[in-house]
């Protein structure tokens, strides 16, 4: 089973940050406080959407036909995501 990377604190639901990274080969450990990349701050559904958008070369029409939903629905989802990313203050 592939472990899912947690991005939210299970206790207070605040976005988590990276505090430790390790090398699997030599076991070197880097400690610090790094914010999560933008992509990981998004929900799994939003991440899936971005991936689909990329794989269809940014064609919303093709995405709509692949997902079995209408063009304006896909465009609305994209607009909502753009707003969400803007709200993350990036």
């Amino acid at each position, binding site marked *: 089973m592939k472990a899912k990377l947690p991005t939210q604190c299970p206790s207070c639901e605040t976005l988590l940050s990276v505090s430790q990274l390790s090398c699997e080969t030599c076991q070197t450990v880097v400690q610090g406080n790094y914010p999560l990349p933008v992509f990981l701050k998004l929900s799994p559904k939003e991440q899936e959407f971005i991936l689909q958008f990329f794989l269809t070369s940014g064609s919303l029409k093709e995405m709509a*036909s692949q997902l*079995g939903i*209408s*063009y*304006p*629905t896909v*465009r*609305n989802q994209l*607009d909502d995501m753009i707003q969400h990313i803007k709200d993350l203050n990036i």
Partner: protein
Amino acid sequence: MKRLLQFIKNPFEISSDKSLTTTGIILFIIGIILAYFFQIQLQILRVNPLVKLTITDIIIGHLIILSALTIVYFILGKIINRKTRLLDILNMVLISLAPLYLIFFENINGYMYEEIHQMEEAIKSGGILNIKTSIFSVIISVLSISITIYFIYLLFIGFKTATNAKKIWHYVLFFAILFITDLLCSGLINSI
């Protein structure tokens, strides 16, 4: 079955532009034929079975409703979201109007004409309170109201899908425009 339920709930979310336009146009033509066959004048939120209509009157009436709703909601859509497309608004109007055509069947054998005519006569003679309401009339009325509510529901979710409207003022304007357009269209259709 699941797809059908989804279509009834929100056809604008799952159907492609082409299929919505094709279905909408076919239903629009069927609506015109039914209106002529049952002799009913559609006026958005009301119907009038009391006038004698030619096929030209009905086509003009239906085109007035289609174009008025499309134009006003396209303008509102552009104000709310500049990405709003005319095609999505046209589809929303074409598909939303379809349930209203079911109301035409209430004039089979001139039933609706007779009921409204009797009411008019009773109002003129001052005996409106003496009119007996049959269970059938109540069922027909409830059915008509339900169909009209479903029409408004389809129009509303179609508009939300086409424009991504989310704010309260968007909804207020949507309903205000619906009632104003209804009044204007009724006036215009009655003057033909």
